[in-house]
């Protein structure tokens, strides 16, 4: 048994050391908002925050975590940046199939928390690891800018 702090709550899980955080979230905790897209760090569908940083949960092995990290997922991510991103995403109607969008939102929220007024270059750099097969990229870019506006108030 080991404990992980997810969305502010301590959760006990019984898994092997080499288990990716992605599958702990999806299978053990049934928090399926975090998606499996490639399992190889190539698509960003599995993006979560670990101590405020956007990381790929499919590449984060539980054995490499101390257990004290603050893990946030799409279900629980909070704060000014995350709220603004969710509002902007709904307003711009970014989602098509939607399968990539949890990861997009998590990457965008991490970007805005660190860089509240991102340039187009900042957005490209921060979001380039998040694949959207529906190619909603234009709206993703618009929504990140909109979220920045919302944060400004």
């Amino acid at each position, binding site marked *: 048994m080991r404990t992980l702090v997810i969305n502010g709550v301590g959760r006990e899980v019984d*898994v*092997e050391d*080499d*288990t*990716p955080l992605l*599958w702990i979230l*999806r*299978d*053990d905790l*049934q*928090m*399926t*908002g*975090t*998606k*499996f*897209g*490639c*399992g*190889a760090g*190539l*698509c960003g*569908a599995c993006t979560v925050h670990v101590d405020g940083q956007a990381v790929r949960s499919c590449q984060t092995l539980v054995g490499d975590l101390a257990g004290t990290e603050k893990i946030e*997922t*799409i*279900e629980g991510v909070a704060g000014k940046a995350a709220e603004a991103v*969710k509002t902007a*995403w*709904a307003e711009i*109607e*970014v*989602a*098509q*199939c*939607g*399968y*990539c*969008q*949890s990861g997009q*939102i998590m990457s965008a929220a991490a970007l805005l928390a660190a860089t509240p007024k991102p340039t187009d270059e900042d*957005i*490209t750099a921060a*979001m*380039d*690891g*998040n*694949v*959207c*097969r*529906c*190619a*909603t*990229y*234009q*709206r*993703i*870019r618009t929504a990140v800018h909109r979220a920045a506006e919302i944060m400004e108030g």
Partner: protein
Amino acid sequence: MLHYLDKPLEAARGVAASRRGFLKILGGAGAGLIVGAMLPPGSLVGAAKAANGADAVFNPFVEIAPDGVVTVVIKHLDKGQGIATGLATLVAEELDAAIEQVKTRFAPADNARYANLMFGMQGTGGSTSIANSWEQYRTAGAVARAMLIEAAAKAWGVPAAEVTVAAGKLSHASGKSGGFGEFADAAAGLTAPEKPALKSPDQWVYIGKRFPRVDVPNKSSGAPDTYAMDIHQENMLVVVLARPPKWGATVKSVNDAAARAVKGVVDVKSGPFGVAVFADKTWPAMKARDLLEVEWDFAKAETRGTAELEAEYKALLEQPGAIARDDGGIDEALAGAAKVISSSYAFPYLAHAPMEPLDTTILVEDGKATIWTGSQMPTVDQGTAAAILGLKPEQVDVVTRWAGGSFGRRAILDAHYVAEAALVAKAWGKPQPLKVVWTREDDIKGGYYRPMYLHQVKAGIDANGTVVGWKHAIVGQSIFAGTAMESYVVKDGVDDSSVEGVRDTTYGVSKMRVDLHSPKVGVPVLWWRSVGHTHTAYVMETMIDALAREAGKDPVAYRLELIKDDPRKVAVLKLAAEKAGWSDKPAEGRYRGVAVHKSFGTYVAEVAEISMDGGSVKVEKVTCAVDCGIAVNPDNIKAQMEGGIGFGLGAVLRNGITLTEGAVDQANFDTYEPIRISDMPEVEVHILPSAEAPSGVGEPGVPPIGPAVANAIFQATGKHPLKLPFSNGDFV
């Protein structure tokens, strides 16, 4: 096709063919089948009155709860194209419902009520959803509205003609008013009017205006149980398979000792599906699958590689094939032309790679089965699973979830991945839910690709630039051969989906001959967003561009001359050119290309503006004009054009599936890398106003983008990319 699917295929064919709607095909083909659309008699008659407090069922498409919530039952799969919102819009419009009270739910597999009127069976594809539901869903809404009015009039003791409805509220001049919920139960018990009047366009409050997407809140918050991948059931096992590494191979022997040693693995079984690992969770199943040592029997496998296939296809190009069109006298026409140009094109296999990898959950118990999946052809999935499991189709429940993309991948005429899950369940033999999950590698290597094609074209013009002869040969696998729809689409050896967009071109070509070869290859193939137009539009639009140069004419002006009898095409081309500032020279280092194409009844023109750095192409901006008839949801049309352009662009830039000795060379998003935000151009979409019946928008944005960019490259380098994808660099 996999041999074990032959029988289920027959069963599915039986299910489909027995539906009378299937007989009403009027013409056309491909996934864009145009079949006589009609409302099945009695389809809109109110069903039994709901018992105490449950939703009142007005007809198969509309249910209204006591609290006023209107549930629109969606007969098509929503894989991101927004059809759930589209159908909700149609019902809400005629019902005069308020946006907030409208919800959607996917229909169960039930051919009698929910068939696609263009296919005659339940299914989504060919951008047909809006077109075939346009009358049906509006009528469903209007019927429910009339019944609510009648119920309210009775309750209030006033004439029905005096009751008005707006934004979910019934009112009378006397001051009486009430919500739908108050009258739903009484209304559902009334006789449905047969031909309720539908609104005229000037009365629309949602159509052509705005109706928010119904799925955005859930998809922006990681809501549980949205996709089939999210399904979790008590006592469920996850199954990951080792499939044959070459099509047609079978399992010879397995050493599963290491796999079985993985904690969480419950069992390993071999079968016609390959080798299946059953585990309590996904990770151990995936890990163990990779530890299997399988010896395969390749005796009956496809072992040709891309190079061998290309050589064989090239040889076929030189021989006469099945004749898709022959106006006669082609050789004389070319001999008499002032100028003749010829080009040979190569298009690779393409994977769909929907963002949600394929997955199906299946439970077989007590003479029935339940299947949870993003089902795009429930009729076929149901019939196929039933045949494998020895059940009747009605004993198989298909529960549809939102699909994490499809692009054609989930509409499979042999239902192969549902069939596979059924075979796995049969091998398991216990009443336990099994979730079969594909990894991304399984998906990329899994076949059902857009076929590989070669084209060869010789086109001649006279001194004025008029096209006097067009000789065209195409080689590539038939998508429809061997499927339940073969007889409708393949005529005289010509699969229409291999030649659509060429033989029916509206460019004024006085003499055309089109030869088609459809070789048999062991690689399973499938329609891919916009089907034949994915390659035919590319060839037509780049050839026309090259001819414009030969004729010394501007690419837009030249096209306008040649398509003068196709007014909707003319209109989109003019609009895109105007909005892109075609008549002004592009800025230093920028180049523009244009393409226009009609597919699935919708006309799209795109102007691409690019910059180039050596062999690498950056698409800076795309200006798009679309005519899809009445624009039901303008914002969604824009979204589909943006997405279609991005999807098509990613493929032409760098995607291709290649084979070495029959095995796929690519595996994941590193070797088959989708378009990313850094590649995405700015996209500007203009919608032509129209009073024509609406046509689809999911696919038609795709075909013009490849040739538009290729034509811009032609401006920059004097060469068209002829061997796709562009990363081959044959134009540098």
